[in-house]
């Protein structure tokens, strides 16, 4: 019984990691950039949700506002900071991403204060506990898992079936060939950032349901762990990000179940080291074979 309720816990946490890892992975797949500001977009999203809920907006409006703000923020960041650096060395772009992350954290600290603010979960969702064959399950766990799965199905549809999605796949396989096909790469990059950030926007609300204390630094460690999830799953791969996210989530919960809650971060990064040592391309990653 404990095992099952912990499994649900792990799936809930893993869902949140997976949603963020997708944003990392997609952006990396397109422009080979580790967008370290991605976790902080989630943090800003969580504040938007918090303030609009406190202002007693309708829950659906809160959700919409959060997703739109996260998306717009990511597009602005991409246009202002990454686009001018499109032809710069990758290290410069990486450092810029870290800079944007620090900037977002400091701005939030300046405007919203450094200490955590409680997230009014009850305004969004009345917490209920279901008893399911003797297992206690929170309604927020169920909602998180379902929302994540639906998001992933929608994302898969976008990438496989829509025009821009197909262009995304083409760009991630061969940028110059995609340009020769007539793909406007700038649009595809912006679209990718937007899709990734809207998933982070959804993630910010799911995160707040599970950890209802919002502070400017929540994005940092969360982003790092989602980054680990993306690497473990195979960066650049969408199913990889999902698998990586769930792996990390379940692993963390297992560590906590064994009474080692102080060790969760350590174990996650240990997993990263092990993966990098034995299968650096990750679970779903392909070996890059060059055919001449």
């Amino acid at each position: 019984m404990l095992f099952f309720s912990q499994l649900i816990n792990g799936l809930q946490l893993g869902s949140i990691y997976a949603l963020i890892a997708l944003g990392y992975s997609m952006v990396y797949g397109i422009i080979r950039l580790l967008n370290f500001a991605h976790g902080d977009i989630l943090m800003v999203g969580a504040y938007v949700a918090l303030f609009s809920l406190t202002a007693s907006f309708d829950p659906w409006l809160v959700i919409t506002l959060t997703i739109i703000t996260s998306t717009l923020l990511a597009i602005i960041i991409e246009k202002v900071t990454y686009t001018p650096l499109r032809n710069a060395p990758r290290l410069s772009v990486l450092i810029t991403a870290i800079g944007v992350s620090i900037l977002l954290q400091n701005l939030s600290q300046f405007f919203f204060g450094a200490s955590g603010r409680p997230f009014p979960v009850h305004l969004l969702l009345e917490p209920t506990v279901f008893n399911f064959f003797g297992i206690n399950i929170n309604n927020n766990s169920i909602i998180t898992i379902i929302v994540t799965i639906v998001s992933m199905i929608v994302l898969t549809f976008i990438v496989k079936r829509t025009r821009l999605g197909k262009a995304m796949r083409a760009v991630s396989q061969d940028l110059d060939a995609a340009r020769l096909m007539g793909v406007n790469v700038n649009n595809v990059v912006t679209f990718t950032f937007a899709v990734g950030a809207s998933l982070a926007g959804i993630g910010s609300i799911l995160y707040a349901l599970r950890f209802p204390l919002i502070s400017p630094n929540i994005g940092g460690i969360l982003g790092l762990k989602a980054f680990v999830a993306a690497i473990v799953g195979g960066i650049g791969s969408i199913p990889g990000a999902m698998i990586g996210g769930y792996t990390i989530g379940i692993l963390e919960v297992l560590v906590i179940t064994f009474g080692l809650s102080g060790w969760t971060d350590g174990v996650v990064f240990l997993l990263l080291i092990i993966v990098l040592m034995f299968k650096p391309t990750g679970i779903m990653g392909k070996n890059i074979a060059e055919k001449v």
Partner: protein
Amino acid sequence: MLSVEDINIYYGNIHSVKNVSFTVEEGNIVSLIGANGAGKSTILKTISGIMRSKSGKILFKNENIENTEPYKIVRNGLSHVPEGRRVFLGQSVYENLEMGHYTQPKSTFKERLEFVYTKFPRLKERRKQPAGTLSGGEQQMLAIGRALMVMPKLLMLDEPSMGLAPMLIHQIFDIIKDLNKKGITILLVEQNAKMALNISNKAYVLETGKIISSGDSKSLLQDNIIKTAYLGG
């Protein structure tokens, strides 16, 4: 159809294409021949907008395209089959052709797909297979088929013979001739000078970024200097 006037292209500080000018007349096959590193591929990339020239003009259908975005150039009917084929290896043959049609109106898709399938029946047989599982020759056919999805006015082919068996090379060159008969103007870049001169009307010989010789292909085939340098004596 295409007129390149006095272009200069740099890779960082390296001046790789120097004052190159040439013209491709409508209905012709024109080839650029030369050894590795002569600047042939660089010129094609610059025409399709992937690289930029520091000077000069590139006129396509009398319109200056030297600062035009690559996607607009393709849309206007200038297709480029890049060196090394560059098909999307993880995507199916069908999806590759779909990408080739990216800039075109939906209504033309079926008709063009049929056109490509009749030209390359092998692609139809393998339409569901990932491009990475095709042989080199089939990948070259796919690369050409993908470029044909825009029904180009001008088709640029970069080393279509590279890495192919002699029999396949003949097959690919027959296809190129046939496409030309159908009214597609062709700009061909080749290291295989003999094959290129045999099917083209006009050729330019490049050496370390400069045009050192040009003329109609028949007379270049007889030219002694060209013979020793490029045709194996």
